[in-house]
C-alpha cells in the first residue's frame, strides 16, 4: 500500500520499484500473448506507462495485480486489433532458453514449444487471455474473472474451450506426447 501511495504521488523511485516487481510477469504475459519478444517489450512498455498514468484511479478495492492484469489484458486486445504486422513466433526459435545438452532432444523440445506457442497464439482473444491468466499466471477463476470483468463461470467455460481447442490442434499436429 505504501508503494502504491508513493506511486500515486508520482515518486519515480517508487515507480521503478513497482516496475521491478511486476516487470517479469508483465513481459511474460505479453510475450505469451503475442509470441514476439520485440512486440512484447513494446506492449510491456505501454502497460507500465498506462498503469503509471492511471494509478491515481486505483482505489485498493481489488488486488493491485488484478487491476494491472486487467489493464494489460485490454492493451493486449487493442494491440491485436491495431497490429496486423505480428506474425506470431517467427522470432522465437532464437530465443528459446534452457536447451537440452542433446541436440536431438533440443530440436524436439523446441518444436513442441513452438507448436504450443503457436496454438496458444491462435486461440481466440477471450480464450487466450483466460488461459494465460489461469494456467500460466496461476490465477483462480475468481481472480481471472475480476481481471477480465466477467463471471467466474465465464472463465470456467473459456478454460474448457481453450483446452479443448489446444488439445485438438496439438494432437492433430502430433505435438502432444
Amino acid at each position, binding site marked *: 500500500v505504501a508503494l502504491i501511495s508513493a506511486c500515486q504521488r508520482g515518486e519515480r523511485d517508487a515507480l521503478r520499484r513497482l516496475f521491478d516487481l511486476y516487470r517479469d510477469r508483465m513481459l511474460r504475459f505479453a*510475450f505469451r500473448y503475442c509470441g514476439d519478444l520485440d512486440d512484447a517489450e513494446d506492449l510491456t512498455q505501454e502497460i507500465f506507462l498506462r498503469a503509471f498514468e492511471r494509478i491515481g484511479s486505483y482505489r485498493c478495492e481489488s488486488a493491485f495485480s488484478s487491476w494491472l492484469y486487467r489493464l494489460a489484458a485490454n492493451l493486449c486486445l487493442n494491440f491485436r486489433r491495431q497490429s496486423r504486422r505480428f506474425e506470431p513466433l517467427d522470432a522465437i526459435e532464437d530465443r528459446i532458453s534452457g536447451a537440452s545438452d542433446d541436440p536431438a532432444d533440443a530440436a524436439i523440445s523446441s518444436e513442441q514449444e513452438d507448436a504450443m506457442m503457436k496454438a496458444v497464439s491462435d486461440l481466440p482473444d477471450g480464450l487466450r487471455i483466460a488461459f494465460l491468466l489461469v494456467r500460466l499466471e496461476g490465477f483462480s477463476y475468481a481472480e481471472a474473472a475480476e481481471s477480465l470483468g466477467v463471471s467466474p463461470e465465464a472463465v470456467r467455460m473459456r478454460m474448457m474451450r481453450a*483446452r479443448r481447442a489446444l488439445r485438438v490442434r496439438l494432437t492433430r499436429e502430433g505435438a502432444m506426447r
Partner: protein
Amino acid sequence: MTCQECSDRLSALLDDELTPEEIGAIRAHLLDCDACCRELALLACLDAEAARMSEPQPSDALWEKIENRLDEVLPGSPETNPWRSSPEEENVVDFFRAKSRLSKMGRM
C-alpha cells in the same frame, strides 16, 4: 455422471476449482471410463507442455524506454497539467522576475 458431464468438468478439475463432492463424482466415473481417463491424461499433458514454454528475458533498456516517456503520463508533467506554464511562458515570467530584481537594485 455421464461422459459429457465428466468431460465438461475436467478442465476445472485441473484448475483446482471443483468442490470435494464434484471431485468424488468424477473419480467414481473415471474408475469405470477409459475414454474420460484418456481425456484427462491428454489435458494434463497439455498443461505440462504449456508450463514448459520459455521465459522471455527483458532487455536492460526496458526501464530506460519507460523512464524517457514518464513525463508524458505523470500528473504534473507539462503534457498532462493544463495549469503548468509552457517554456515560452516561463521565459516571460523569468524576464519580469529579472526586471523586478534590477529595479529593486536600482532603488538601493
